[in-house]
């Protein structure tokens, strides 16, 4: 039982899939086959795969929107089958691509749905709504009384995330949450959610079909192949460095080396020592390796002086990055 307290006052829970199979009565092929996964408390686990790989099905078995045919899913050691289904769902935040806000309720009433079902008093709910709106980047003074139709798609999904977190559930299920949102807004939502997650540290299962999103969001990525079979479950870095087989290598793309570089920042790697003298191009330590490499290639620059504010950290060259790429992936998230 690894229920972990966190900064926001809530907790995260460990989720374990044990030999989970889903077979629909009308079809002989399984949608998910013998899936085993351990998702540590507080981590973001991305489920990804082509269509027909059962990623959404796997996720929906956690809150029992889809029943489990064989095997079991446990939350902190307790089987989801043994829990009362409404109680189970009220303890799991649920965010979907189409958002599904209640159009007839104000933002406040939308967010307050689960706290009200749980019988929180009015003052506590009001306070919680304000807190959440601030957390997801909305206006706690103006927005509670507005209706969903008055917001843009990106803002609506912010409300959707706030609603899912309302009763401080230890687990969140997110089904392609940013899939229907324009690329610029999506990037902002992704960054904001990562920042938020660093704060609240819930256990998140995140379904996507976008490998770049998976690499960005996931502490671990589970790649499923058609037929619902797990192809590889590992950290993004390991998957990019050493894909388990042809299918995974194809799926992550031929540019997986470059993708791997975008996971690291200059300040995180071992740089060459700074030579005496001057006359090299300076670069911020928070630049990703991918951007640094791009800069060097495009500008025909051989050496970059990595700066942390005013302090030089070291020299980055194409060789430094190349050496790093040659190493295998790490086991723990970077």
């Amino acid at each position: 039982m690894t229920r972990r307290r966190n900064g926001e006052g809530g907790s995260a829970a460990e989720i374990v899939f044990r030999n989970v199979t889903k077979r629909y009565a009308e079809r002989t092929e399984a949608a998910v086959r013998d899936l085993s996964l351990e998702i540590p408390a507080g981590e973001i686990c991305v489920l990804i795969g082509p269509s027909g790989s059962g990623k959404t099905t796997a996720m929906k078995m956690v809150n029992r929107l889809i029943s489990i045919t064989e095997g079991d899913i446990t939350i902190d050691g307790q089987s989801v089958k043994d829990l009362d289904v409404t109680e189970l769902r009220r303890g799991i935040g649920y965010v979907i691509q189409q958002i599904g806000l209640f159009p007839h309720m104000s933002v406040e009433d939308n967010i307050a749905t689960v706290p009200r079902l749980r019988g929180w008093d009015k003052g506590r709910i009001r306070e919680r709504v304000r807190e959440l709106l601030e957390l997801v980047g909305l206006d706690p003074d103006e927005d509670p009384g507005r209706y969903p139709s008055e917001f843009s798609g990106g803002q609506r999904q912010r409300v959707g995330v706030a609603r899912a977190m309302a009763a401080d559930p230890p687990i969140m299920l997110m089904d392609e949450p940013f899939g229907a949102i324009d690329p610029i807004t999506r990037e902002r939502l992704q960054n904001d959610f990562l920042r938020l997650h660093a704060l609240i540290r819930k256990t998140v299962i995140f379904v996507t079909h976008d490998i770049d999103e998976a690499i960005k969001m996931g502490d671990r990525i589970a790649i499923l192949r058609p037929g619902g079979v797990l192809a590889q479950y590992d950290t993004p870095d390991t998957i990019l460095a050493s894909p388990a087989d042809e299918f995974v290598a194809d799926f992550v793309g031929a540019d997986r080396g470059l993708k791997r570089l975008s996971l690291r920042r200059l300040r995180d790697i071992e740089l060459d020592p700074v030579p005496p003298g001057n006359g090299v191009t300076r670069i911020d330590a928070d630049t990703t390796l991918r951007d640094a490499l791009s800069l060097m290639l495009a500008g025909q620059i051989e050496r970059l002086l990595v700066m942390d504010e005013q302090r030089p950290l070291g020299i980055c060259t194409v060789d430094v990055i190349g050496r790093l790429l040659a190493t295998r992936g790490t086991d723990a998230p970077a």
Partner: protein
Amino acid sequence: MIALADPGRLAQEPVIPEFGQGSDCVRENRQFCWDWFQSRFDDVFWPRIVEHVELTLIAVGIGFAIAFAAALFAHRYGWFDTPFTVFSGFLYTVPSLALFQLLVPITGLTWTSAEIALVSYTLLILFRNTLTGLRGVPEDVKEAARGMGLTTRQILTRVELPLAFPAIMAGLRIATVTTISLTTVAAFIGAGGLGQPIFNALQGGFKTQFVASGVLAVLLALIADALLVIVQRVATPWARARARVRAA
């Protein structure tokens, strides 16, 4: 109070009242005599208006109760949709005069006959509109509700019915206006209402009574419709928010 059927009543009432002693307008039977209308409003028209409103309210009330229950049932058990649609559709197509007359041998020249007929005309509209409203609730909204741990009943009362409300109200408006107009025909079997002075005037040919009754029935329908629109607007502030956004 409800005026129960009195078969003799049509014949008993004076056909053209106050002939000989009224104003020039009344004596000449002009299109509309305001003075006569004003002086006889309290005894000729007001009781009929009250009857008319009562007949309508009870018919729409009972009709709504039946249609609403049937729609909820059909929403849960899809197979029920077709048989009830066929049944209420059949009732809807029976000509009103014929239906009133058909019921007389069974339930007599009574208020009951009138209400049975009036109720049967509301069913199709109220049933279809309620069911369409319930079925129009977006799937993603329902999925989010299920995923958040709302029970089937909570989804119905907190999500589906509020979202179906505009469609249900649209049905109520049509049913109410239709019933108000049909209720005038119910006077044919002595059920009272504004149809009564119309029938009397048709027999005697006194134009003022005829015109006044007709206009009052139309006004009643307009007022009822306006009231329902107000109820709907007050009850669905979210729909106005959406309209504001569309306009902007």
